[in-house]
């Protein structure tokens, strides 16, 4: 099976986001970057499928030089090849990112393309679905279960208040959700192996962006709350406040 995994490098979830003075960007100086948590599920699934069916896993990431670290993590988990699409920064507009990925994916003739369902920085939730339309192949996202039977796939995805089961065939795109698998920690051997893999670098010409981030702001600070009490005795007062002050009951 010829598998591609598209990954993004994102700040660690613990990160307290600091904005630059002009509020146009996030200040990256103190950020610990990681492989996007949802992409870990995608990489894991790709490696498991390779282990079960044979084939090769190509890791693809678009972004500035620093994303190589995320690529190395994915390789250490079991990826075989890597392509780094070099850009100055991550585009604001996910459609632009997806188009650049699509052009590389088209060349690769992949049977299966795996991604995280969302990157935890921009939170767009767009790339897997966009790729489905751009490549005109099935794309199923928020997937928590995937079964492969020859060329046929059955995926279970989360929807609001339930699950959906879809059937389709390869080539296809899968957006991974937590629950799909338990990602492995890269082994020492894996890390050593990853170091020896040459990451292929490509310059990409990005299309003009139609979505632009104009300004970043911190959410308004919350007013300090009230400690209503320190025992169950406080419950009637809490309910009174919810009823009369907050008017939510």
């Amino acid at each position, binding site marked *: 099976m010829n598998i591609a995994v598209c990954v993004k490098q994102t700040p660690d979830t613990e990160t307290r986001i600091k904005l630059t003075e002009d509020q146009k960007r996030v200040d990256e100086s103190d950020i610990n970057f990681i492989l996007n948590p949802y992409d870990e599920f995608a990489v894991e699934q790709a490696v498991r499928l390779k282990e079960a069916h044979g084939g090769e896993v190509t890791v693809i990431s678009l972004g500035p030089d620093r994303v190589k670290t995320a690529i190395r993590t994915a390789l250490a988990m079991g990826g075989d090849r890597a392509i780094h699409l070099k850009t100055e920064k991550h585009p604001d507009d996910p459609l632009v990112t997806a188009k650049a990925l699509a052009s590389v994916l088209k060349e690769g003739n992949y049977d299966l393309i795996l991604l995280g369902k969302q990157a935890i920085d921009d*939170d767009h939730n767009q790339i897997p679905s966009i790729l489905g339309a751009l490549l005109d192949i099935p794309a199923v996202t928020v997937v928590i279960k995937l079964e492969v039977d020859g060329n046929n796939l059955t995926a279970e995805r989360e929807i609001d208040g339930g699950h959906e089961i879809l059937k389709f065939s390869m080539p296809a795109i899968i957006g991974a959700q937590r629950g799909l698998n338990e990602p492995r920690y890269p082994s020492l051997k894996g890390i050593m192996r990853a170091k020896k893999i040459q990451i292929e670098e490509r310059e990409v010409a990005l299309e003009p962006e139609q979505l632009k981030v104009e300004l970043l702001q911190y959410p308004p600070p919350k007013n300090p709350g009230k400690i209503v009490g320190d025992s169950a005795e406080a419950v009637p007062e809490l309910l009174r406040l919810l009823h009369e002050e907050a008017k939510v*009951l």
Partner: protein
Amino acid sequence: MKVLIYGEHRDGQIRKITFENITLTRSLNAPFEVVFIGADIPDAGEQLSRYGAEQVTLVKGSGLEKYSPDGYAKILAQLVQKHEADVLLMGATATGKDLAPRVSAILNAPLATDCTKVELDGDQLRLIRPMYAGKVLANVSLNSGIKIVTVRPNVYSAHENPADAEVREETVEVPDLKTVVKEIISGAKGKLDVTEADIIVSGGRGMKGPENWHLIEELAELLGAATGASRAAVDAGWRPHDEQVGQTGKTVSPTLYVAVGISGAIQHLAGMSSSKYIVAINKDPEAPIFKVADYGIVADLFEVVPKMIEELKKMKN
């Protein structure tokens, strides 16, 4: 500026987000139409009239009774063009998240997802969408002919505002469907999803085990709330993953969020701190959840929650 609202429905019911988006669009003073694909909603006209929709199109076609991501996307893209809409407005629901990016790709129109503010300034849309799970709010602009926006559920409330809805049916050619939903597995019967709920009661590691969850469920039932959980509770296998609130779970904006035995880790706060009111019940006065809570009780949840249940039952009677 003409808006096309994608009407969401399930099991013959129009979903709340559709009414929220109608109310929002009315507040923008923009002309709009509501379209439903594959819907069988007997009283659509009546329901939509109540919220002030004037033009409604029910799109039919063979095989459209079941959701097909690629099929729905192609049809919706055609509708946007045929109805000459400038803006396609959808909910940032599971369906909206799945469908909107596909339409964006087909029409080469930019998409701002999960917006928490949508305003109109002349012909410019002013949009705010949270990033980094709500740690940052971004003002984004869409610079294009057609623009696509998904709105976070529960941020704009739906208001009744009667009008006379004209409901038309339109039959479309259905393209080859690459992916079709074969089966829908509903959660526990009548279970409310956290993203749709006005009130959420969430439990964390402080609940000590699944055997105590009846407390969360009973409290939720009395409040008409959905039940949520922290990742610790999900990882321990006490609760299903679709209840997880937070950066790697669901982002919610209910009117009231009750956090029971949840410490308030940054990843949890990211998913719920935009709730209108937050109540925290935790025995540790230093727990970070109290930094975002509007009301807190610092005490043993196994005493507080039963007392809440008892008092709410009294109030009901």
